[in-house]
């Protein structure tokens, strides 16, 4: 009886300590996030200042008089001291004001709002594909490490690390679209379906489903499947490799022998004991892979004319539209940094050893 009371008394205390650890973990995460995002703003500011393109000229054109030039320069705040310019830039960046895009004449933030969901749609599906195939493949390779099957999985992964994604995309388009006609070509929808669904989330597949437009949905899927599989392959290469390495490391641990001594089936030993120990680092691997796809979609989007943030940045780049480039970089960077640090936080919160 007294023992039970002791046990009951001990539990909330432990929970309190755990909650405190969670809170301090989240606080640390937010602080690091703030510092890193600040660093990102500094870097884009510096990039914006060293640009050889004169931003005033971009606005007034090269036939404007000296008066007009000076006035616009003052309006743009370019005659202020650098530190003051940075302060203004920082405040604007925090409030999401990245200026107007010269190319589209919209505020950059409005452009980003229309383009970013397309990137998220693509990267999410890519990560789902990469995770669903990559983890079982990595487990398979680890369990049969050293076998021919393991070598094949390793080579599949190394090829994924080695092939230029934009080239593979072109070749896939050539084969599956131009020659075999299995999938739809570049872009997000056939022109006939444009503007048939109202953008709610901005992700065409989701919007079409929500509005019951199945025909549009299937057209969107046929456009999405090839680039998503491509990103999925890259994600798979990384995830399967990491799964293999993490699981091999766990399979060498003594608790695995203990599990076998208990007479558990090999399936249970691997999935419930070894993989569960690798689960937390594996989750961070998946999050990191997602972040990399968000960023790495720049090249894929260019190849597939996918109207995402990557296409937006490169198009703006080629037209010397620095507001759009820096705004896009900041948003992609912020998403990347957040996911990156989030994976750290997840690691600390989910692993009982580090709680």
């Amino acid at each position, binding site marked *: 009886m007294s*023992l039970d009371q002791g*046990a009951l008394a001990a539990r909330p205390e432990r929970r309190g300590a755990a909650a405190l650890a969670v809170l301090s973990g989240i606080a640390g995460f937010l602080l690091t996030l703030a510092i890193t995002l600040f660093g990102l703003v500094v870097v884009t500011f510096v990039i914006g200042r060293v640009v050889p393109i004169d931003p005033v000229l971009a606005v007034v054109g090269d036939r404007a008089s000296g008066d007009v030039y000076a006035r616009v320069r003052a309006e743009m705040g370019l005659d202020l001291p650098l530190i003051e310019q940075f302060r203004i830039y920082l405040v604007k960046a925090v409030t999401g004001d990245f200026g107007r895009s010269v190319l589209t004449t919209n505020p950059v933030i409005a452009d980003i709002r229309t383009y970013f969901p397309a990137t998220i749609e693509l990267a999410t599906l890519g990560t789902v594909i990469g995770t669903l195939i990559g983890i079982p493949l990595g487990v398979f390779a680890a369990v049969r490490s050293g076998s021919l099957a393991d070598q094949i999985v390793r080579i599949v992964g190394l090829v994924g690390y080695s092939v230029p994604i934009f080239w593979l995309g072109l070749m896939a388009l050539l084969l599956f679209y131009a020659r075999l006609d299995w999938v739809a070509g570049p872009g997000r929808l056939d022109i006939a379906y444009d503007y048939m669904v109202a953008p709610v989330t901005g992700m065409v597949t989701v919007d079409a489903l929500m509005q019951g437009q199945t025909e549009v949905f299937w057209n969107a899927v046929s456009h999405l499947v090839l680039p998503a599989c491509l990103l999925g392959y890259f994600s798979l290469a990384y995830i399967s490799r990491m799964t293999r390495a993490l699981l091999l490391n766990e399979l060498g641990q003594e608790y695995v022998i*203990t599990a076998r*001594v208990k007479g558990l089936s090999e399936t249970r030993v691997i999935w419930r*004991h070894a993989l569960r120990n690798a689960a937390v680092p594996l989750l961070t691997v998946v999050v990191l892979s997602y972040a990399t796809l968000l960023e790495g979609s720049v090249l894929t989007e260019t190849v597939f004319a996918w109207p995402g943030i990557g296409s937006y940045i490169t198009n703006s780049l080629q037209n010397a539209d620095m507001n759009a480039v820096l705004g896009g970089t900041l948003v992609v960077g912020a998403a990347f940094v957040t996911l990156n640090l989030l994976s750290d936080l997840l690691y600390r919160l989910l692993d009982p*050893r580090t709680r």
Partner: protein
Amino acid sequence: MTAPLVEVEDLSVAFDLPDGRIEAVRGVSFTLGRERLGIVGESGSGKSQTGRALLGLTARNGTVSAKRLAFDGIDLLRASERERRALRGSRMTMVMQDPRYSLNPVMTVEQQIVEAYRAHRRASRAEARGAALAMLQSVRIDQPERVMALYPHELSGGMGQRVMIAMMLITDPELLVADEPTSALDVTVRGEVLRILDALVAERGMGLILISHDLELVASFCDRVLVMYAGRIVEELRADALHDAKHPYTRGLIGCLPRLDRDSHPLPVLDRDPAWAL
């Protein structure tokens, strides 16, 4: 008389490594009834691999061969993996050196013990939990309710090893292989863990194979002692007749024990005769 609990005849275990083949165990034979057998030897003498081969836990790159390897009359070399798995954990079990590594770090004590129990018994979660609590009490853990909710890293070394013993004995096995069960523990808790082990083995009438590098410990704990060197048994002794040891290696081991009543300077060093390994 029924068959002995364990029969081992001419057991060999070899490993294929990139640098060549290593013969860890070479022609080991012994039998075991419901008694306590000690296996002593230095690191790499093959004592742990003998225990692992018995349980069927030799690593994948190793091969086990023997004229006979039997448990309670069951030919282990002919048994399928499924049959061996059914024996493991229910009738034969093992306790390893360091609870910090041999317990699963991301499962609570309760999850691990309950899993061991339910792997071989049809029992509801509540029944398994009850059995786990009782078992923890029998390894003299005072607050089993509290300990059940803990993760291994929250346990002390002695506590962890008691949890390990509880987990491995919850299915009432007939054979326990204890592989250096106290070497990783604090000197202060070694005795306690050993006494618990001793009591459980006696009370349940199990066969015990105690593997250790510590001759003194093995001699005080076991009925018989096998001395292994370089994969072979060099000598078999009754534990109370340790000083009758004839083999120079065993005598060397005894000679290395520090004694209070004799000045031993310089400290004696084991002489190894390459001929022993032949």
